[in-house]
């Protein structure tokens, strides 16, 4: 199974140039059944990354472009009166797909945002008292622009918490950019990608990830990290118990991708920035910088 994962990563890296770590984190997030938030300025490849992953995993893919006038019904669907049968019929919205790309989520009003976030959490949608389950597997990859850009509604902490990881893409390095400029269109490349990890296999992997072993020593380290964020004056508020669980889940997936059946502290450290960065909300700095004090101060035994 791990071989398939690594082949997938290789293919993805052909499209998303010079960002192997971010691609790997994004896949890790999906393997841990988490939703992913990509935050960066427009044009650095957020959408391409989502699109590439959807293609490689063979998932139904739908993109929702969030705007300031988008309504909840535009996302989850609406009941429309059918004149032939004289009844209301539910027309499912774009959220009824295995992989949903919520583009520029923070451009929408809080009402529209919460409609999507509710679907993410519950894996189902309720319209007019009737509940419709969402397809399995179900992923949301949301992108957002940095909150200092105009026309944005920043996601509240409680909703940020729904995303397992937040990653930043950043500008490509010189070499990767050259390759990008010289190569063919990313869109075409994307279209031609074969499915490398069909949904059934993905679900098996997701199941296997939950079986990765976590030792008492690792739990000690995990708890040390959590209590450090709560006691330190660096952070306004520490990590919640849900954040602790998320950290462990992500670390398990990371260990699995690394062909191990037990989590080691390096796995926690690898996913820490992505998992904890947006939950600690220490200003506008990068996730890596936010978690640097933790990595430096919490001792590994």
């Amino acid at each position, binding site marked *: 199974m791990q071989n398939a994962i690594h082949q997938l990563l290789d293919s993805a890296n052909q499209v998303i140039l010079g960002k192997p770590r971010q691609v790997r984190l994004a896949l890790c997030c999906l393997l841990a059944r988490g939703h992913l938030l990509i935050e960066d300025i427009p044009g650095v490849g957020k959408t391409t990354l989502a699109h590439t992953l959807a293609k490689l995993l063979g998932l139904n893919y739908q993109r929702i472009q969030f705007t300031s006038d988008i309504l909840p019904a535009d996302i989850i669907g609406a009941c429309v009166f059918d004149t032939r049968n004289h009844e209301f019929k539910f027309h499912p919205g774009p959220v009824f797909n295995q992989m949903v790309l919520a583009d520029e989520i923070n451009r929408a009003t809080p009402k529209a945002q919460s409609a999507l976030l509710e679907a993410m959490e519950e894996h189902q949608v309720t319209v007019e008292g009737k509940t419709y389950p969402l397809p399995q597997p179900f992923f949301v990859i949301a992108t957002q622009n940095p909150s200092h850009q105009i026309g944005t509604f920043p996601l509240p902490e409680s909703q940020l918490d729904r995303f397992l990881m937040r990653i930043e893409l950043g500008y490509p390095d010189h070499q990767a950019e050259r390759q990008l400029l010289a190569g063919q269109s990313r869109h075409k490349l994307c279209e031609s990608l074969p499915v490398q990890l069909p949904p059934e296999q993905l679900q098996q992997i997701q199941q296997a990830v939950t079986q990765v072993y976590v*030792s008492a020593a690792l739990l000690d380290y995990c708890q040390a990290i959590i209590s450090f964020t709560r*006691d330190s004056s660096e952070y306004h508020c520490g990590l919640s118990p849900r954040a602790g669980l998320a950290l462990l889940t992500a670390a398990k997936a990371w260990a699995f991708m690394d062909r191990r*059946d037990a989590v080691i502290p390096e796995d926690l*450290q690898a996913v820490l920035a992505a998992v904890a960065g947006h939950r600690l909300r220490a200003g506008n700095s990068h996730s890596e910088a936010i978690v640097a004090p933790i990595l*430096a101060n*919490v*001792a*590994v035994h």
Partner: protein
Amino acid sequence: MKADKNVLIFLLSSIGLIVFPHVYHIPATVFGFFCLLLAWRFIGIWNQHWLPNKPVIFLLAVCGMALLYSQHQGIFGRDAGTNLFITALGLKLLEIKKERDLYLISYLAFIVAASQFLYEQNILMAAYILLVCCLLLATLVCINSCKAQTLAALKTAAIIIVQALPIAVALFILFPRVDAPRWMVFNQQRHDRMGLSDSMEPGSISDLGVSEELVFRVKFAGAIPPQRQRYWRGPVLSRTDGKRWTQAAFYEPLSSPVVTGTAYQYTLLMEPQDKNWVFALDMPKEFSPSLSLNAAYQLITLESPDKRAEYKVTSYTDYNTGLINRSEYKAATQLPGEPSDKIKQLVSRLHGFDSPPDNFIKQLLNHFRVEDFHYTLTPPVMEENPIESFLFNTRYGFCSHYASAFVYLMRVAHIPARVVTGYQGGELNKVGDFLEIRQADAHAWAEVWLESRGWVRVDPTAAIAPERIERDISVDRQFVYGIAGENSQAYNWLKQARQLWSSVDYNWQRWVINYNNKSQSKFLSSFGISDLKTMIYWMIIIIGSITAVLCWFLFYQKSKTTDQVLLSYNRFCKKLAKHGLFRGAGEGAKDFAERVKIKLPEQAADIDQITAVFINLRYGRTATGEDLQQLKALVGLFRA
């Protein structure tokens, strides 16, 4: 830097506590100035914008300098130096900008705390300073900890102080001592202290009669003389204007007193006082070379009396002072004017101007006893002609009334007499086995010169209030405080507590404060440490061993993990540390191995194997005892 509110509150409170005892030593203006600055800073914690800006701070600094100059005309000397530090501390409080400033203020505060010992060295002050230093240390702990927790910080500070104590004791005993330079002693303001004065008016001693302040302590080498012989001789007053008694000019005595009977050897520990009088038991014969005996047989010290001092004296209670010369005779029979008829009548009735002086003394004491005389500490005011109104009208008085009336009547009968002031009795501290003489023991008695016996002590107060002289408790105190029975439980308990405390204080004084370079060399030579060089060697050895013990303690605490896996892995890390390859606190075993392999490519396989086994043991699910053995073996074989 935005300093943490809690840290600031902590710091400012501890500084307030440190400076507070200085209120007794520094001028009110300087103290007020400091309080103003401290209060300003306190308000500034909550209202940042109220803090002064640069020009205002400059103005305040100029004000502070002007204040210092107006008080001391400089910064030289103990008081000026202390004031300088306190003013500087106050000014620095207003410009806390960086963490550096907090440290600077803490160190300044430590200096101010230490300067307290230039004024007072008693055990309570030492305990107080230790306590506020603990607070200050806790502030430093707070500044450096990621989350300030008051109780935890206080605990850490207390541990630090306890750990420092053995080193402090070793340094105290062994550190070479120098006598304080002169500049520390001069230009000190004298503070009025209670005590006997060099003149006496009827009523003057009554202020002392209720004061519990300690005057001196006496430790006898052998037996303690009985209460009725314990007269501690102070100034002798011969000249009188009818109301006021003062010291006459001193004349050289004709011969030194001849002593017989029991010799009492004792050590006097004088509390600080204004006058250079040393109160010795009548009659001092041998004494420390720093003392001298004046013509009135009073001991005078040549040292500065405003520090606690220790003297060794030997006294004899039986003595004969021999003859007196003409001028002394004249002084001892001086009268302010012609006595009134009433007095003459009284003298002739009791004496007749021809019977021997012994007889007159007996008659007069008897007169006090049988007539309606009363002993009280609160006599009616006698403005005009106090002796006469005391003898014939009021008849209420205490020692100074009786002594002055007695001496006056003696002189009317042409018998040389004078008033002696000093202390009488003293309370035995059963805990420390020494006598404590307090201001309440102040007393005045009479001395009469008899041809064959020299100056003889006569205490007219004993005739009227024998319990004042004979018994071990102060009647005066009972009069004043109205303590019902001396045997009441509370009284005994209080007395015991006070004696215990007094004994502690006495030992503190003897062993800590009086530990100067002389007693140090004496003490150390009993251990065979005679010169400075050996002393310094010993100091280094002791400090070194204490430090080593503390280090070992710290080290032991750090490595007290009992996990065999970790122990083995730590041993592996130690082997690598020899090559300068240290594992970071937050560095995992795998990352560390990757880093180390670059530096030690030959051992890459070993390092990988050890790391893999360790990770499996520590984090894996399938570890067995064999794996542990393997790890131990691998680490044992590993040569970096």
